[in-house]
């Protein structure tokens, strides 16, 4: 009846997961009770859960990413503590079977359920606004994408309470991840969670490529798009090209595990090298799926807070596309130590280094964006400069790893761990933190507290360097990654410094929560009444904060590269806004519970597949299919926002903008 699910799956005898489970369950119950108490379920259901509004979906992605960041960080601090304790004769507090789950979960969560949702969340929130349009190409699909990602995240967290998570690392290399060596449910949790969320990611890719290629404000030609939109386009093209590879390779591993196939097994003609190739054909572009939108955020921040257009816009676009294409031709550098021979290693090594050229150009272009500017040292600029200083070192160590003979001695070592954390934290996380501060007022109508934001930045900046610079040293000393036990007592001082660094990052995460709560409490002091708190240059600052559901009463006419800046300067010069346009009623997509119901059935089906409960798996599939059929036969596609409402809101906005214009022209 319940497949291999028995009471043994609940960790009654293991205090760490048991207590964690109870605390998390209590926390969830407390939040649910609080929502019930303030009677917010109705609001959440209509404004967020079933919303097809790209802004609301973006916010949900970002909230999910930040919540999962706490989970991923808890794993990180447990690993650091274990490595500081388990030295020499001591085995620490985590046995191997637990430690191995933790590092596997840390990697899986941080990439798939922290970095990806945050990046996709920003693309959701920002891209339609910057393109001057009202929504993405497929709004319902967008909601489905989010809920599938949430379903994957839920399954990963469920493994904490019921059963176990994978012990085979975040990429699940076979044959270790095959049934012969990992017979438990851990790898199945990993595979099913990634399959479900992977479908959501591919749908996002399709949605955004279509949006950017087909839906832009009048006059918004390709070479007038903000750089963030260009990086989003490149990132989503990579998603469409790379994620299907992930789906296929994980499906092959599932066939091995569930139906006794022999794609990657040791016997029956299987070949595990094939998995290594395929997973990295996805895995390397994945890095650029994350970092390209991050570069886009830095470009917006650099230009806005320097009070200048981005230096070398075309060069930046070209560099983005160059990275997009070359990133597909370098996957082999993840396994130079397989013994492929001089020619192959050299070609892939040099191809990898070539990515350093457009990336280097980007660094110089941000540098020259600041040159001749009036740089305001806001929180996002702190992250920008912190990134530029950190990322060049990460680039250096990356190029070192791209030289095969150097890789031969630092591959898989803590040097590698330090390198990719340097580019992911220094590159992606810093950008996401900058983006949170930068677009927060647009989403919620008030800015975040500046002082606390700077404190958070310094925690991340100092904490990161303390946590990862020692790992470079240990990498040189021959320390490899994923060690539940440290053989050499002389490594202790460096590991302890790394632990202190991780604790400082933890303090930064706590301060982020404090910053958010304090900012909400004192929001009246920092209201963004104009919709343009940073003196912005792109179209999202044209509308109010938060924007109306339909973003723009009339789609803006775009003249030139910096659509909003040009318009603002003309208005200041002429001391008047553009003539009032003729308002029309607006059609907007209706809300739909399709996404959340499909995701519910996907979670049920996934859980059933993990535990071999076949009747429930079939039930889940049928349920998900039924909801799609129901959705396909819907009668109501859109609702109309009456012209009176549009006109009323638009006139209110014009009044506010007029006032703002007067203050601006007085200050000029």
């Amino acid at each position, binding site marked *: 009846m319940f497949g291999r699910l028995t009471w043994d799956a609940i960790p009654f005898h293991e205090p760490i997961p048991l207590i964690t489970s109870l605390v998390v369950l209590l926390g969830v119950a407390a939040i649910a009770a609080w929502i019930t108490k303030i009677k917010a379920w109705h609001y959440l259901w209509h404004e967020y859960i079933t919303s097809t509004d790209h802004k609301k979906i973006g916010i949900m992605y970002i909230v999910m990413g930040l919540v999962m960041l706490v989970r991923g960080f808890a794993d990180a601090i447990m690993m650091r503590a274990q490595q500081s304790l388990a030295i020499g004769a001591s085995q620490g507090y985590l046995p*191997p079977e637990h430690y191995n789950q933790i590092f596997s979960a840390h990697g899986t969560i941080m990439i798939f359920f922290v970095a990806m949702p945050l990046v996709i969340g920003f693309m959701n929130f920002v891209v339609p606004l910057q393109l001057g349009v009202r929504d993405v190409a497929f709004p319902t699909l967008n909601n489905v994408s989010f809920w599938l990602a949430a379903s994957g995240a839920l399954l990963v967290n469920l493994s904490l309470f019921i059963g176990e998570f994978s012990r085979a690392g975040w990429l699940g290399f076979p044959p270790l991840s095959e049934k012969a060596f990992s017979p438990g449910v851990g790898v199945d949790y990993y595979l099913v969670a990634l399959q479900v969320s992977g479908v959501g990611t591919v749908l996002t890719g399709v949605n955004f490529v279509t949006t950017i290629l087909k839906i832009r404000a009048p006059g918004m030609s390709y070479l007038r798009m903000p750089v963030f939109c260009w990086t989003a386009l490149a990132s989503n093209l990579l998603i469409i090209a790379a994620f299907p590879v992930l789906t296929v390779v994980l499906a092959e591993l599932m066939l091995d595990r569930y139906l006794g196939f022999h794609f990657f097994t040791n016997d029956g003609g299987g*070949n595990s090298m094939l998995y290594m190739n395929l997973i990295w054909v996805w895995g390397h572009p994945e890095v650029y799926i994350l970092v390209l939108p991050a570069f886009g955020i830095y470009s917006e921040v650099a230009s806005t807070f320097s009070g200048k257009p981005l230096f070398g816009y075309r060069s930046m676009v070209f560099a983005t596309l160059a990275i997009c294409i070359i990133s597909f031709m370098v996957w082999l550098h993840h396994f130079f130590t397989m013994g492929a021979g001089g020619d192959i290693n050299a070609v892939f090594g040099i191809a990898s280094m070539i990515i350093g050229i457009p990336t280097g150009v980007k660094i110089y272009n941000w540098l020259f964006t600041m040159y001749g500017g009036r740089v305001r040292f806001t929180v996002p600029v702190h992250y920008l400069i912190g990134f*530029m200083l950190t990322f060049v070192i990460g680039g250096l160590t990356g190029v070192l790893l791209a030289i095969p003979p150097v890789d031969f*001695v630092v591959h898989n070592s803590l040097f590698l761990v330090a390198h990719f954390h340097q580019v992911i934290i220094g590159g992606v996380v810093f950008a996401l933190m900058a983006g949170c501060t930068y677009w927060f007022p647009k989403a919620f109508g008030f800015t975040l507290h500046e002082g606390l934001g700077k404190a958070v930045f310094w925690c991340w900046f100092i904490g990161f360097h303390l946590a990862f610079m020692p790992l470079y040293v240990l990498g040189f000393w021959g320390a490899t990654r994923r060690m539940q036990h440290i053989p050499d007592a002389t490594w202790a001082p460096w590991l302890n410094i790394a632990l202190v660094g991780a604790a400082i990052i933890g303090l930064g995460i706590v301060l982020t929560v404090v910053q958010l709560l304090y900012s909400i409490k004192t929001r009246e002091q920092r209201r963004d009444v104009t919709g343009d708190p940073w003196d912005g240059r792109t179209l999202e600052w044209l509308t109010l904060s938060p924007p109306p559901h339909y973003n723009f009463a009339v789609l803006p006419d775009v003249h030139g590269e910096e659509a909003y800046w040009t318009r603002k300067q003309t208005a200041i010069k002429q001391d008047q806004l553009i003539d009032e346009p003729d308002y029309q009623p607006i059609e907007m997509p209706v809300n739909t519970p399709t996404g959340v119901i499909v995701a519910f059935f996907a979670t049920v089906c996934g859980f059933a597949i993990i535990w071999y409960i076949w009747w429930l798996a079939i039930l889940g599939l049928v349920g998900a299919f039924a909801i799609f059929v129901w959705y396909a036969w819907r009668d109501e596609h859109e609702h109309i926002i009456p012209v009176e409402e549009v006109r009323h809101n638009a006139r209110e906005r014009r009044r506010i903008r007029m006032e703002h214009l007067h203050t601006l022209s007085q200050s000029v």
Partner: protein
Amino acid sequence: MNTGALHVRRLRRVIAVAAASLALAACNRGILDPVGPIAAQEKQILINSTAIMLAIIIPTMIATVAFAWWFRRSNSKATYRPDWEYSGAIEMVVWAIPALTIMLLGGITWIASHDLDPAKPIKSNVPALKVEVVSLDWKWLFIYPDQGIATVNQLVVPAGTPVSFRLTSATVWNSFFVPQMGTMIYTMPRMATELNLRADKTGEFQGLSSHFSGDGFPGMQFEVQSLPADQFAMWAQGARGTGQPLNPQTYAELSKPSSYVKPITYGAVAPGLFDAIVNDKVPQLHLPQAAPPANKNSAVPAGG
């Protein structure tokens, strides 16, 4: 005995102790302390490439801080150029700097990737020692086909003699790595990789698996002893015939999962064992890794 001599002797003792502790502190410092030509060349490439890149990166970092600070909004001395967004000359320079750097490093990469190809034999007047390496759950088996002996978690090599390794895995992937000797390489089931290394210094070095392989992974450390050539010959001679032979039965026993295994020596090896493992023809027990690894000092039947 005069006091001067006593002083000298005491001084000598102090120096000896200091030198010994320094040597201890400096020993086993991984890839920065190479003991052979491969590791030495790799360290040199590492240092050269880092230096080349730092020559570009340090000025960039300084410029980042300097530009941001000089052009801060409160600095009235800085010229504000709100529309300056393009300069062909600067564009050319910013594309040229990384391009030239990468061309230089690319050249180094091309040459070094071929010179230091793990499969390339090391030129030497002395014929290479053959060692066959098998990674097991979770220990290393070293077979000396020409000497007819085998060891577990202990690799003995003659200093100054190239060692030609063939490597495979009897279970999951691992990576064979002796940081001070250089180049690591994967051991993969049903496949054989090749690696050529040489230790020029005598001494003891640390070896490890550098590719995660399951619950007993941290216990896959092994020691490398580099002996003078004549002592190596004596060691091999002495090992032959002592202790258990490595045949399908003892191999099956050895294959059972265990970790932190103390060194074992086998006095004889069934011929063709390595190839049989590569071709999966050894009658071995296919045990899953589910069992937690044995504790330290695990009781694997000691052969030697």
